[in-house]
């Protein structure tokens, strides 16, 4: 009956069903909040491309290339490779919101990473057009090149690297717009459509503070499920995050409830193998253990699998 390794062949199908189901069912919520449906479609698209970029889904050989193409939603006519660090705005795409002022025009920029293993990688980053003026971006990237950020992202998968770079740039830009925008407001006006740079400022504090745990906090503040608040990508940010936690929550370690996924995040870093499931039976007799699990999702050796039932045994 069961084909070999159904637990893997089913993965793309199951995942797609779940994605469709989620997207369909939250549609109303989006409309209720007055959020345009294209944002929902964008969510779906980002989700799918991120998923593809993990390469965890078996049997989808063409995914990687697709991921590379669609990892950033911003329309770029065609990515041109530029010399390292110096990047040039290509298709400017207004309307993409960000932590920057709503009217700020965002432009897409290619950053070519110095080749590490021989292959060059181009990260597409969105930046506000204001940052192109003066040496802001240049300085920023020059600083980043020597900093730990590049060291960290250079070995990461493309989308992760892009995402981290994006955050780094956003963070850096948001923490210093005072300089540019107050120094020569007239100039910034020139390049931007009808910008209100001042609107940047109210955001800043929050943004800066968020930088430290931006990647980690995925489901809003104080949400009851701090489930997997840490994703594998924030190499640099991790320390700060820990510090933040320490000061914000005291020494309150969330080790005693089902949200205690701190270890998961370590595991994740180690690309460890994890199975998430439900137990039906757990037997122990002396040092012998037997398990019956169901409804599991696994990531073993970097490949996802799903199972309806799994039974096993071991000794302690």
């Amino acid at each position, binding site marked *: 009956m069961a084909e070999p390794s159904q637990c893997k062949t089913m993965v793309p199908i199951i995942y797609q069903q779940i994605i469709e189901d989620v997207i369909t069912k939250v549609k109303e919520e989006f409309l209720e909040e007055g959020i345009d449906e294209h944002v929902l479609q964008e969510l779906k698209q980002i989700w799918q491309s991120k998923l593809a970029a993990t390469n965890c889904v078996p049997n989808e050989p063409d995914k990687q290339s697709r991921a590379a193409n669609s990892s950033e939603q911003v329309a770029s006519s065609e990515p041109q490779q530029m010399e390292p660090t110096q990047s040039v705005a290509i298709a400017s795409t207004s309307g993409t919101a960000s932590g920057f002022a709503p009217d700020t025009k965002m432009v897409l920029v290619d950053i070519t990473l110095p080749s590490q293993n021989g292959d060059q990688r181009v990260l597409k980053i969105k930046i506000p057009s204001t940052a192109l003026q003066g040496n802001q971006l240049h300085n920023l990237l020059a600083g980043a090149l020597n900093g730990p950020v590049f060291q960290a992202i250079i070995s990461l998968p493309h989308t992760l690297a892009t995402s981290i770079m994006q955050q780094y740039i956003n963070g850096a830009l948001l923490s210093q717009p005072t300089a540019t925008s107050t120094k020569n407001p007239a100039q910034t006006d020139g390049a931007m459509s009808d910008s209100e740079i001042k609107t940047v400022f109210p955001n800043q504090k929050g943004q800066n503070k968020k930088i430290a745990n931006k990647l980690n906090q995925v489901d809003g503040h104080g949400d009851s499920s701090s489930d997997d608040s840490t994703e594998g990508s924030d190499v640099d940010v991790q320390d700060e995050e820990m510090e933040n936690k320490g000061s914000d929550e005291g020494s309150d370690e969330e080790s005693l*409830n089902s949200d*205690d996924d701190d270890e998961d995040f370590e595991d994740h870093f180690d690309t460890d193998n994890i199975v998430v499931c439900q137990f039906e039976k757990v037997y122990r007799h002396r040092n012998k253990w037997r398990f019956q699990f169901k409804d599991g999702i696994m990531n073993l050796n970097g490949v996802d699998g799903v199972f309806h039932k799994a039974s096993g045994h071991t000794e302690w």
Partner: protein
Amino acid sequence: MTYQLYRNTTLGHTLQESLDELLRYDQITPQLACKVLLQFDKSINATLATKVKSRLTFKAGKLNTYRFCDNVWTFMLNDVEFREVQEITKIDKVKIVACDGKNVGEEGSSKK
């Protein structure tokens, strides 16, 4: 019973990253992101329960660590061999996180 533990999967992680991205660009609110995650919980619980048929067995050389807390088992197993029909996957180490499967479908049941 809808568990949130599946957020700690590839699918869950990538969804959370995606939401994070939209949040960062102020395209959605944290509340909406939260609702999406809750819907994800429902969808993935339901889909796993109804659509997945594969069965597998495993044996582990050693149970390294175990913990039972808040009705959640966590196991660290070493030298594990997963088997589905003839396909075998061997790994040095795996972490298994398991919520109580009996609660599903009989909410409020006193049966533990």
